[in-house]
């Protein structure tokens, strides 16, 4: 198997590789999760902060890839890392189709991962992949167990399209999002878990008089976030960590 690092973290890497060129920002849209086919609505979400490859000796090919979750570092094989990377999604995929188990397995087959189903199961068992279905009780449980953490700078909005916000690096917007998504991007990691963050964001929206019902209801906000989460995960604009425990 000959897999490049960019394939490991999803196709967003191909866009980042063009950083020297005029990079067209990716667009994050809120997806109406209620419109999803209920049979296919389950999402596969990667958990953890990529710490990278670890080679112990010069010129040795012996290595593993580290992913941190909370205070624990998991050591992934190449095959596990490919599946974990593919679970971040692909920004050029069909926005109306959720990025779930089958989509990841199909993508794994295309890049030649053997025993991909078995590898995927090992990651689920290690809690490095979590399946969650928006609009179910599982979604709130998922949000209570995890924290959304930003990995890029916020780049604000523009005079041309002030309703769109972006994140990226200075001079290089990578991902675009609505004001509501940007609010979570900015603040969600401050809370001990994602559900608290949604409740806090909704309370703030009510306090400052934002009329969008989506922004004032934590459950609607969470479902909207889950529906678009892979567009934030695929370019590594955010990652999900385990919840903070006081």
């Amino acid at each position: 198997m000959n897999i490049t690092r960019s394939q490991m973290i999803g196709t967003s890497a191909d866009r980042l590789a063009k950083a020297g060129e005029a990079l067209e920002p990716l667009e994050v849209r809120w997806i109406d999760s209620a419109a999803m086919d209920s049979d296919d609505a389950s999402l596969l979400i990667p958990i953890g902060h990529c710490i990278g490859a670890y080679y112990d000796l010069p010129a040795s090919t012996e290595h593993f890839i580290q992913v941190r979750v909370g205070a624990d570092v998991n050591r992934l094989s190449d095959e596990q890392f490919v599946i974990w990377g593919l679970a971040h999604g692909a920004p050029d995929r069909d926005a109306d189709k959720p990025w779930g188990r089958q989509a990841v397995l199909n993508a794994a087959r295309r890049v030649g991962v053997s025993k991909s189903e078995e590898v995927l199961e090992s990651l689920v068992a290690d809690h490095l992949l979590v399946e969650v279905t928006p609009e179910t009780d599982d979604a709130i449980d998922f949000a209570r167990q995890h924290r959304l953490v930003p990995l890029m700078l916020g780049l604000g909005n523009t005079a041309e399209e002030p309703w769109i916000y972006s994140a990226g690096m200075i001079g290089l917007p990578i991902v675009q999002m609505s004001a509501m998504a940007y609010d979570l991007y900015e603040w969600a990691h401050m809370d001990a878990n994602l559900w608290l963050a949604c409740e806090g964001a909704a309370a703030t929206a009510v306090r400052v008089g934002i009329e969008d019902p989506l922004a004032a209801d934590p459950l609607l906000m969470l479902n909207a976030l889950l529906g678009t989460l892979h567009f934030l995960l695929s370019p590594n604009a955010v990652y999900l960590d385990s919840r903070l425990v006081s």
Partner: protein
Amino acid sequence: MSAGSDSTGSERAESDRSAGGDTAPLVFPVGHYMGPFHPKVDAPAKHYIVRVGWDTPKLPDEAHLNIWALAHGLPDRTDTTRWTRHAIIEAAAEADMADAAGILDTLVGLGLIAEVTPGTPQAREFAEAYRVQALMIGIGNTPDDPILDGIGFAGIPPVVKVRPRVFEIWQWAHLWPSLWAACEGLAWVAGEAEDVDPEDVDPDAVLDSVLEAMRTLISRNAVYLDVATTPRSESSNSEKPAATD
């Protein structure tokens, strides 16, 4: 936000020059950059937002944004120049940025700049008042260069390659609620190893390493400095500003 200072920044910058700058406080930017806010179509940026703890102090114009950005440090000078007020004012002058000293004072007042003198009691106060937050992902090392670890984004060359000690700080220090707690934690972890370097188990010595690493990491936006805060609890009713204020 800066602990333990009585004179104004402008006065201290003058003092740096006369003293050669070897003991002058290091200057660090505080906060996670959130970009310009344009209130409506075709409107100029009303201000530039930085999140600091549960607050969002505003940089009022580009002049303040530029000096705050300059306070991060210049990557090609992090190994050679102590990043003090004097260094920032000199770099600002090179770039024709006006009134850097006055703007630095304003930024201190906004809580967007913090100053620390390593090796002094004030350094401990600083470490208790602030924390780091990590940005980017780890790329790790390679068989060709197993010593240095890359930090950046997938698919592009690492934004920065760092020694294991700096990588360790990027990877772990953000998990503690303050820099000082991180120093104590890292020192405790080091003490569990077999061959212990005495400096690695002394939190004050670890703090010196952390402050040195912070310049490398902050100048590349691989970490940012935040105030030490606690997360909102289930029963808390703490309020935050709206993102688009």
